[in-house]
């Protein structure tokens, strides 16, 4: 994609420098969020769908972690399972989610409500639908404020206007009483961000916050997130399929495929030395990296009946016989803060079969977003008005 903002490379650079700082910083600190062996199953008529099948990762205070994968890889469900937003039934969540020393899985629904929106903010994919169409945006932001503070109606209103101002809604006070449909997509996402920030959360889970937006707006929102992160000192768990976004904002990256973690590590390691064939395939899809831009051949496996062995093996050009058997390979450490789930790294294989001449790759994407694997970025017009009611 051309016509990218001149600001983007700077932002990317800023982000990466932060990441380096954090990385050195991590050693002494406990993770803010620690996810261990998270599993989410859905019982459907077709069978049990294992959307998330044993995912583990950590998020440290103040850092940005990106969950990356194709659509349907389970990354969104992972994000939602953390605060148990996944509807249950049909969803069933297992595993351990420790947030700031508290095991969220042990909490009652009531205690969890304090966390949701209080200490963990959420932003969802499609700002078009994330706001309730029948309430003013101000009301919705103020609702978020009042749900977590004792603020009076008036205080909540002031705080909401502040927040709207902070997220860059011009003339926030005047627009307080406007309805969502009077806002553009980007502005709506800003409002959603404002809502998520209402109670100064420690962690912001942002699920594809820019997918549904225009390219120019995407950059603005990303920058807003980066700025806010700095300002509020919060950690961000960014769920995305867009590697160019990852490159811009991530400190660390977790690559998931079919409900399993394929590779995780520092953003540099992932981009410089992608270890897993899947990660490499993803990166190959980025424009300007010389690979095919049409995506990865093949389809995601049937979620009700995933293949044995490595989940990726049916699409993997390097698949070995042992890839087809047993469970998903364990995560092998390939470098400091860089793990990969691939038999080539078990010590008995030669990983260069995958990596080839490692240095031949360009170090960084040189262009902005827009590339990446296909995702349903179906920006649907607001179709709630049908003309059956036109008498």
């Amino acid at each position, binding site marked *: 994609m051309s016509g990218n903002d001149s600001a983007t490379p700077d932002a990317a650079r800023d982000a990466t420098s932060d990441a380096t700082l954090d990385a050195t910083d991590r050693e002494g600190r406990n993770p803010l969020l620690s996810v261990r062996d998270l599993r989410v199953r859905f019982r459907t008529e077709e069978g049990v769908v294992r959307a998330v099948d044993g995912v583990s990762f950590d998020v440290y205070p103040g850092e940005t972690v990106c969950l990356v994968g194709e659509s349907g890889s389970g990354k969104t469900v992972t994000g939602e399972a953390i605060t148990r937003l996944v509807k249950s039934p049909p969803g069933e969540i297992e595993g351990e989610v420790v947030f700031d020393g508290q095991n969220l899985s042990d909490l009652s629904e009531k205690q969890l409500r304090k966390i949701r*929106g209080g200490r963990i903010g959420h932003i*969802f994919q499609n700002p078009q*639908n994330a706001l*309730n169409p029948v309430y003013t945006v101000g009301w919705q932001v103020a609702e978020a404020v009042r749900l977590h503070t004792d603020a009076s109606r008036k205080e909540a209103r002031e705080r909401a206007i502040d927040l709207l101002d902070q997220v860059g809604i011009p003339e926030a006070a005047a627009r307080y009483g406007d*309805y969502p449909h009077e806002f553009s997509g980007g502005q709506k996402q800003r409002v959603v961000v404002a809502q998520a920030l209402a109670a100064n959360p420690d962690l912001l889970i942002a699920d594809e916050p820019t997918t549904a937006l225009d390219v120019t707006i995407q950059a603005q929102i990303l920058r807003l997130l980066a700025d806010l992160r700095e300002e509020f000192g919060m950690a961000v768990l960014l769920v995305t399929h867009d590697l160019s976004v990852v490159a811009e904002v991530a400190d660390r990256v977790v690559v998931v495929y079919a409900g399993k973690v394929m590779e995780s590590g520092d953003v540099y390691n992932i981009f410089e030395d992608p270890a897993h064939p899947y990660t490499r395939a993803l990166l190959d899809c980025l424009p300007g990296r010389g690979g095919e831009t049409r995506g990865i051949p093949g389809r995601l496996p049937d979620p009700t009946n995933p293949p044995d062995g490595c989940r990726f093996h049916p699409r993997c050009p390097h698949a070995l016989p042992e890839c087809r058997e047993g469970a998903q390979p364990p995560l092998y450490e390939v470098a400091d803060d860089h793990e990969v789930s691939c038999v080539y790294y078990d010590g008995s294989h030669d990983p260069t079969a995958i990596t080839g001449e490692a240095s031949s790759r360009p170090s960084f994407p040189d262009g902005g977003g827009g590339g990446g694997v296909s995702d349903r970025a179906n920006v649907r017009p607001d179709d709630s008005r049908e003309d059956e009611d036109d008498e």
Partner: protein
Amino acid sequence: MYWYVARRLAWAFVATFIILTITFLLLEVTPDAQAAQLQFQAAQGGGSAEAAREAYETRRGLDAPLWERYSNYMINVFTLEWGWSDTRSQPVVEAILDAYPYSLMYGIPAVLISTVVGIAIGLYSATHQYTLADYAGTFVAFFGISIPNFWFGIILLLVFAVELGWVPVLFDPNVPVFSVANAKQLVLPVFVLTTAAIASEMRYARAEALEYVNAEFVKTAKAKGADGRRILTRHILRPALVPLSTILVGDLLGLILTTSYLVEVVFGIPGLGRLSLDAILNQDTALVLGTTFIPVLIAVIGNLLQDLAYTILDPRIDYGDR
């Protein structure tokens, strides 16, 4: 928006006018049962059938030319002079005023109960999809839609009034409106009407709520930390109310207007349904037109209100382009 409302109003007016005209003409071509009977009686008694018919027409004011009667009627409709009911010997307006409290007495509780309970069950069903309660709710709905009201009414009357004696068989129009006796005699009609109405209410409520239960903004609200009840009442019910309001004025009123004929006949309630039914059967032209006017008016105003309700309930609707 004003332009839109004005146009809607004008159309409401025209529609009412057309419907009343059609009714008038239909009545005009309907053979007059009473006239035929009177003539036959006169003939049987050895009198003059012709004279009997003339006397009848004089009495009923049918001797004026068609056009005159039509234009008189149309003018009078809008001045609330709806004429004289010959079969009840009272002004039509009075007849309607006499009858409507009885309809309201069972209609209002039925509407309120079916709306509140119907929507409540519907929402519960939607948020607890595929649970036992959901299936039970669905069953209630289907039962209500499927049971023939008149049959149900008679059977209830037989069981609870005749066999068990818990409620009176006869509707006594003289008991005070707010009294135990009145409540007792209204229980069955309200119940029958409610079972019919609750079904459509809850089915629609469930369907509408289902559309929103999985909406992004509901997830957003949950992520904000809102509790279940808040989500249900503020974030699901409120947007669902927009289409539900349509059902309330449209389907529910339609259903109640139809059912009222049967319920009032079965339970002997002298309300609008029976007034209108008897008016048709007795071919009391003025009364037929008057009693037709009421549901037409309700439908027309209901449609209008429903459109206006959209403006209030759903801020997205913008009337600029209509």
